[in-house]
């Protein structure tokens, strides 16, 4: 079983949703990043998404976009993230996933990426601009290295595409809760419940809900339809407002 599936299932077995915080690599600065990452891990994060910064993040709202541009300004690169992670390999209880746009991964070299992710203890990649059709050849190169490509689906994904994703998906499937970009919302659309009812039986793996989520109350109505929650912009804001990874996790565990 994938490490990511395992971590989420372990959380579910103890009667709770798995918590997946998203922290942009090198945020809030290059030194504090590692401190906050360790604090999220110690605070009980089940999986942690580390953002790989990109100059043109089309699936992100203003909070994550700004964090991404700030990180680039500080010289954060995929190579730096992977290199520093490999020095800390084995120190995290949480499963680790990189989330980033395709071009930085492509320029890094996909074979090299597969090798270095394995060496750094990274178990999955979330690539928001790599839909099913384009993900296939990439997944092929990564297969065998123990690195899963995490699929994203959403409110407008039709049945035939859901079926194809159900075949291709590994680790967990990421359900995007809004027709929109990342960023905190007051409430999630009501149609999410209905869509999750359609999606649930099609995937024999955990479902994580992400985009727009900032408070545990928001996910309560979803009950057993989801297994994990991704929180991104709210964590970025929490850290910008002077909070820590530790205090953030207290709100979620």
């Amino acid at each position: 079983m994938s490490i990511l599936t395992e971590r989420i299932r372990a959380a579910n077995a103890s009667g709770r949703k798995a918590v997946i915080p998203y922290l942009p690599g090198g945020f809030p600065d290059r030194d504090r990043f590692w401190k906050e990452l360790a604090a999220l891990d110690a605070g009980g994060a089940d999986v942690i998404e580390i953002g790989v910064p990109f100059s043109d993040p089309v699936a992100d709202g203003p909070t994550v976009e700004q964090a991404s541009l700030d990180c680039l300004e500080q010289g954060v690169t995929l190579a730096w993230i992977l290199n520093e992670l490999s020095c800390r390999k084995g120190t995290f209880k949480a499963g680790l996933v990189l989330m980033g746009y395709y071009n930085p991964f492509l320029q890094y070299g996909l074979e090299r990426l597969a090798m270095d992710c394995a060496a750094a203890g990274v178990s999955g990649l979330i690539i928001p601009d790599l839909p099913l059709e384009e993900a296939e050849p990439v997944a092929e190169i990564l297969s065998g290295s123990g690195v899963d490509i995490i699929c994203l689906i959403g409110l407008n994904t039709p049945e035939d595409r859901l079926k194809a994703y159900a075949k291709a998906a590994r680790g967990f499937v990421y359900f995007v809760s809004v027709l929109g970009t990342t960023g905190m919302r007051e409430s999630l659309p009501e149609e999410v419940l209905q869509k999750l009812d359609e999606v649930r039986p099609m995937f024999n793996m955990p479902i994580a809900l992400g985009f727009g989520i900032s408070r545990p109350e928001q996910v309560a109505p979803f009950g057993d339809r989801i297994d994990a929650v991704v929180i991104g912009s709210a964590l970025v804001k929490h850290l910008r407002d002077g909070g820590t990874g530790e205090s953030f996790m207290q709100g979620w565990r």
Partner: protein
Amino acid sequence: MQKGYFGSFGGMFVPELLMPPLLEIEEAMNTIVPSEAFQKEFNAMLEDYVGRPSALYRCPNLSKKLGFNLWLKREDLNHTGAHKINNALGQGLLCRHMGKKVLLAETGAGMHGVATATAAAMLGLDCVVYMGATDVVRQSHNVRRMGLLGATVVPIESGTQTLKDAINAALRRWIADQRTTHYCFGTAAGPHPFPTLVRMFQSVISREARAQMLKKAGKLPDYVVACVGGGSNAIGAFNEFIPDEGVQLIGVEAAGTGEPGCHHSAPLNLGTPGVLHGAMSMLLQTEDGQIEPSHSIAPGLDYPGVGPEHAHLQDCGRARYVTVNDGQALSAFHTLSRSEGIIPALESSHAVAWAIENAAEIPKGSDVLVCLSGRGDKDIGIIEEYEAKKGC
């Protein structure tokens, strides 16, 4: 299965949330666009509203001076003053056939924004145009035109505040508004099916020009020359000549100031393959895959990427891509204005400049067809500012 590739370039590198609306456009492109009803309606609009066919003009004075026949395909004479209207009207009409109410567009120089706003006004659609905050300032004339046409212009403050960021913002807006909105992409770049759809609507340029050359010159041109930013006027000017092996296709990229180390807009000449705005193509980027800022005196060429079909035409050797710098383009701008009484857009001036700069190598008596993609009224402010700075 991968879709929309030209050789190893193209594809659909977009969030899954954009796949359904893109596949919906693909379907409409394959079923609605070829239908007799659509073609009849579209061709009537091109004739009566745009003023097509656009003239093919042999420049008498420059031809004499240069030693070859310089032919201009006068897209500058179209309604709204550039080739952009061909695509905006086509997509606007398609939008209406698809039952959507809003045309969303990005714009750099503002020409595609104006064309889309025009199409929306004429077709009874709402129009929202995303434009980098820097471009809003340097192309304020076009911003006012869009306002008069009833469009909402949204200035984008993020990133480099130019075309690239306007596209990011428009894609984000489209994710949210896809049910009511058609994204009227302005150039032959972006994810499939846009490069093909835009080529379909811009190919009217070469379809007309080919027939006009045969009629007026009695032969095909030896060269077809067009400027390349995203590449929509170029792919439109090239397309019908691609099977004509004797016709050399020359795409002219903007070299910016032309000084070493300076920013430019020449990804086909100086870039590397990568993925931006939904397609694999040639890009200006760092080794780490971050997109680098571009520069050109011509705002419509100021873009770090290029349409994937151009990357392919370069790769397979069918077209050749060259560069012209700001100074050469400006010089050609003045030459054409004074010799022929035609004030070209700074973008199109790059194509004219190639013909002038290479006169020594072009065999005497050749027929050189240049796509004059737009008129230069919009650029007068830029030129005054540039020349004041240079002290000329």
